[in-house]
């Protein structure tokens, strides 16, 4: 908690928080990287489920989209940290924010599982049902993380 207070009062974080231009830029980065992150992983999940790009093999699609997903995640994490830091003591004790971060963490783990296994699942005989189920859970988790994110201000008036 002491770290959160210190963090929110560092000159760099205070500069971002008090500058309309900088805080807008950070917010813009957070939204844009979210779209890149969720958009690319959801397309791969939908392909594994057999609902998208059926004429392309899943490995090819995943190879092109996963670098975008990781770039999106890195930018999203960085901008998210700056937004968190601006009001760190409040976020630190916010229960909805805890749920959001947990859902995001589980979604990232599922993203890693999908990336590691997509080559193995992508067989001429078809993608196994277990893989489709896993892709569905991954998709649901990313949509769930968006819901958890918008519930933070809705339920606790924070952010």
């Amino acid at each position, binding site marked *: 908690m002491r770290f959160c207070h210190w963090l929110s009062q560092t000159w760099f974080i205070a500069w971002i928080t008090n500058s309309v231009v900088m805080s807008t830029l950070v917010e813009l980065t957070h939204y844009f990287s979210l779209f890149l992150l969720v*958009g690319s992983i*959801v*397309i791969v999940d939908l392909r594994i489920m057999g609902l998208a*790009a059926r004429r*392309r093999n899943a490995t090819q699609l995943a190879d092109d989209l996963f*670098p*975008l997903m990781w770039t999106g995640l890195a930018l999203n994490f960085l901008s998210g940290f700056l937004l968190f830091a601006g009001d760190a003591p409040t976020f630190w004790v916010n229960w909805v924010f805890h749920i959001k971060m947990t859902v995001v963490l589980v979604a990232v783990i599922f993203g890693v599982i999908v990336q590691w296994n997509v080559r193995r699942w992508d067989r001429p005989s078809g993608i196994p049902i277990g893989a489709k189920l896993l892709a569905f859970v991954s998709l649901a988790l990313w*949509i769930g993380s968006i819901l958890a994110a918008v519930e933070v201000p809705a339920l606790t008036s924070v952010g």
Partner: protein
Amino acid sequence: MYHLLVSFCEWLQNTDWALNIAGSTWAYPYVQMIHFSGLSLWVGTNLALDLNLLGVGRKRMTPAELSGALFAWNWIGLGIAVAGGFMLFATAATSFIVNPAFQLKLGLLFPLALILHIIVQSKARIWGQTTTTPAVAKFAGFTELLLWLSVATAAVSIPIFEHI
């Protein structure tokens, strides 16, 4: 014309469903979730194609192949984003139409970006036959990327103009 638009917004904002969304602590975040999920699909797939045209990232597929693979969910994403966006708009329609950032977003930047996207998507079949794209394709991809960034900048600026 403007008075007609204001009357429509007043009517829309006072419809039962708009009042229910605006006054409910649980419904509003679900509508936001719909809007952001649709935007993730729409903007995410647009960015993937633009970056592919620019030659950024891994390219196992040509822009023509990637555009074809993303086409259906790209437009489904826009449909979901517009449906969610319309519901969000309805909750405070009269405030939104007088907000300069919202006017810039929906009146100028979004139509421009949408038109350019349709051009890029149709031309990707010609420009993107191989993984190396012509300069015009790179320029179009870069311009589209900048336009979507401008749309998003206008969107995040809406709250700044709310109390002015």
